[in-house]
């Protein structure tokens, strides 16, 4: 009897946590990502000691297979692939997270305004989203990036701008269904203004779906960044993303001499990260929405 009572008393969040804890794939993904973030963030501390400097070149040791001094081998300029893969994690994750943040800000703001305002405003705003959906956005990104001088900011803006539409739709749907609920009416009765209602009552309740979708957006963005790198539309600066590493590596893949380490290590890192983000996103979705 008591056990059943306890279960009934658990908050939805607590239930979600339990469900998530049971999902081994999602947990493993979570651990992997944490580890990756820690390694990527702390790697500059080890440079010169445990880790080579990712920018240090040694032309006479170019394209060497993995060895004790270079566990992942060296690239065409004799740079250490291990150090570059770790440095690449920093850039790729940064691009993924920041562009997702752009998506979040635009999508959540747009979606909640449309959802909360309702009526004609909602119709117009959502029609606009429908129209934007039909625009070949990624082509505008390619145009933008190849036509103008590239900057980090532009890359985030461009990638984020493509992805915010779905986020806006999701948030709007959530807000629409939430705003008819009792607690919103109660808040309204107490005299809370629209901004307060949205930010204090509606958004926190829509947070779950937002987090899930944001988690699933990060891998899409990382992949798109690598796609742009391949087209030569790279992030400017000395630091290279995984996409850049891989597009350099692809240049070295040919039937005569396969420098496999160039593609295998950064490629696995990228694939593992994207897989982990997808597992994590799926796990969160299942945990928050068991249907």
């Amino acid at each position, binding site marked *: 009897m008591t056990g059943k009572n306890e279960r009934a008393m658990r908050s939805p969040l607590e239930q979600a946590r339990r469900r998530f804890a049971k999902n081994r794939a999602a947990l493993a993904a979570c651990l992997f990502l944490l580890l990756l973030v820690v390694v990527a963030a702390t790697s500059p501390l080890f440079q010169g000691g445990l880790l080579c400097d990712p920018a240090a070149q040694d*032309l006479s040791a170019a394209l060497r297979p993995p060895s004790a001094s270079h566990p992942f081998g060296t690239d065409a300029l*004799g740079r250490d692939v291990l150090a570059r893969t770790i440095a690449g994690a920093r850039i790729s994750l940064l691009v993924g997270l920041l562009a997702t943040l752009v998506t979040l800000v635009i999508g959540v703001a747009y979606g909640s305004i449309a959802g909360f305002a309702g009526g004609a405003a909602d119709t117009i705003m959502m029609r606009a989203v429908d129209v934007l959906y039909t625009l070949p956005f990624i082509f505008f990104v390619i145009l933008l990036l190849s036509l103008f001088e590239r900057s980090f900011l532009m890359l985030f803006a461009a990638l984020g701008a493509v992805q915010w539409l779905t986020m806006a739709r999701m948030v709007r749907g959530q807000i629409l269904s939430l705003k008819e609920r009792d607690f919103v009416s109660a808040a309204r009765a107490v005299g809370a203004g629209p901004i307060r209602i949205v930010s204090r009552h509606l958004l926190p309740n829509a947070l779950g779906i937002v987090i899930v979708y944001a988690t699933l957006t990060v891998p899409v963005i990382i992949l798109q960044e690598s796609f742009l790198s391949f087209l030569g539309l790279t992030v400017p600066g000395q630091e290279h993303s995984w996409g850049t590493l891989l597009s350099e590596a692809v240049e*070295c*893949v*040919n*039937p*005569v001499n396969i420098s496999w380490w160039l593609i295998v290590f950064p490629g696995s890192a990228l694939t593992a990260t994207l897989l982990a983000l997808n597992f994590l996103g799926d796990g969160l979705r299942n945990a928050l929405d068991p249907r």
Partner: protein
Amino acid sequence: MKKPLLIIVAAVVAAGLAAYLCFAPGRKPADFSFVLLSEQKSLDPAINTTLAGGRVIRALFEGLAGLNPRTLAPEPALARSWEISPDRLHYTFFLRPARWSNGTPVSAHDFVYSWKRLLDPLSTAEYDYMLFYLKNGARFRKGQLADFDSVGVHAQNDSTLIVDLEHPTPYFLDIAAFESLFPVNRACVEKYRTLWTRPENIVCNGPYTLTFHQLNHKLRLEKNPAYWNRARVRLAIVDAYTCEGINTAFNMYETGVADLIDDFPSAIADTLLKRKDAMVAPYLGTYLYRCNMATPPLDNPLVRRSLEMAVNKEEIVRHITKGGEVAATSFVPPGLPGYPTLTGVLYNPDSARSLLAQAGFPKGKGFPPLQLLYNTSENHKKIAEAVCYMLRKELAISLDPVNVEWSVLQEKMRTRDYQIIRGSWIGDYTDPNTFLDMFVTNGGNNQTGWSNSAYDSLIALAGQTLNPAQRMDRLAAAEKILVAEGPLINVYFYVTKFLIKPRIKGVYPNIRGYFNIADMYTE
């Protein structure tokens, strides 16, 4: 419920089958096929600017002279012979009887028309300067002269062309073999205007005609039955595939789709060099960086030489380009007949540091951060990153490689909005002048703001010199000034890198990667 689904499935399958069946092109296989690493802007001889396009144009059209594919010496082509006046200012070309592919005869008037078309004030030709050697050529082009009759090209009769030059130009026959000067068919050009080079419209006088051209895919050349020297043409059908990306091109070669590619993937260039089907020869081209004279401290020749000395060019050619390129210490590539190769700036990091100190930046202190611009390409990127790393390491200065698109690079160079910029120069004709006259004060391709009066006068003097040895001496003296004080960081001299299937004959190593498809044959 069930029916719509079935209809959809059936529709999808039918569409798939239809799409699948549409693929088969069903064309005769080619006798020889090669790869063009970029799509051609146009096959109009007046508009083309690329070497690869030149190869196709030489198959479609024939000029007064051609080059010997082994020695690059000018030889009679459409002109059966010529006479040159003792002052080397007047050329008389005697044309042989020949026909256009539409059956009309090729006459001296065709040349007058084609050259006028190139020089017309409204012409969009980029190689207009190839005819500035003609008397009054430049003036007519700039609109200072309205009457084309005063320009130095006249048809004495249908088969005699008289050409008058502005200055004695020892390499004029070489120019006459240049594709921009090839004749075009007036009736065809005037009828179809910009569309005249399309396969359905084109009229040509060369060994081949164009029968198919799909953009970014391929163009097909077939033997021209109206060509006067049909016996020379042994490959009846030739395909030129367009494919960007040297790796894809290499895959095409390896899988037998293409019989010739004119570059190597640099990652395996060293391995390919040793193969039997590789043909490698020095090439008349230099890979370099320009320094902007308007950006201090690059206006100081000590700084420029210091930078150049700190670049280990040997390492770059050995480990990055790997295709047998030669580290450059000077500007004019080796292999030009009668011209000495200068030993210029050698790698010496110690002297580089002391030069930099002499210029006021001991140990790089106070040296402003600079940017080195290069255009998007895997190779340019690697070289730029290596050069910047070398300079940062040896001289303790801050230099960053910055990648821009090709057209932006060109614009930055033209407006001189750069500090250090990647460039290259490929000779238009087999003479050092094609390299050296570009750095005269305000020369069209100077693009650096560098100016040196001694250099200018040496180049001008060489232009008036009839004695070949003396002329070469003067050009060499000019190059010495350029290398010592000039705005360039020369990196390496290009090489021709061909992979050719052993059954294909008739391609010879020369310093311009020059071959005529019409001279090729199979065994």
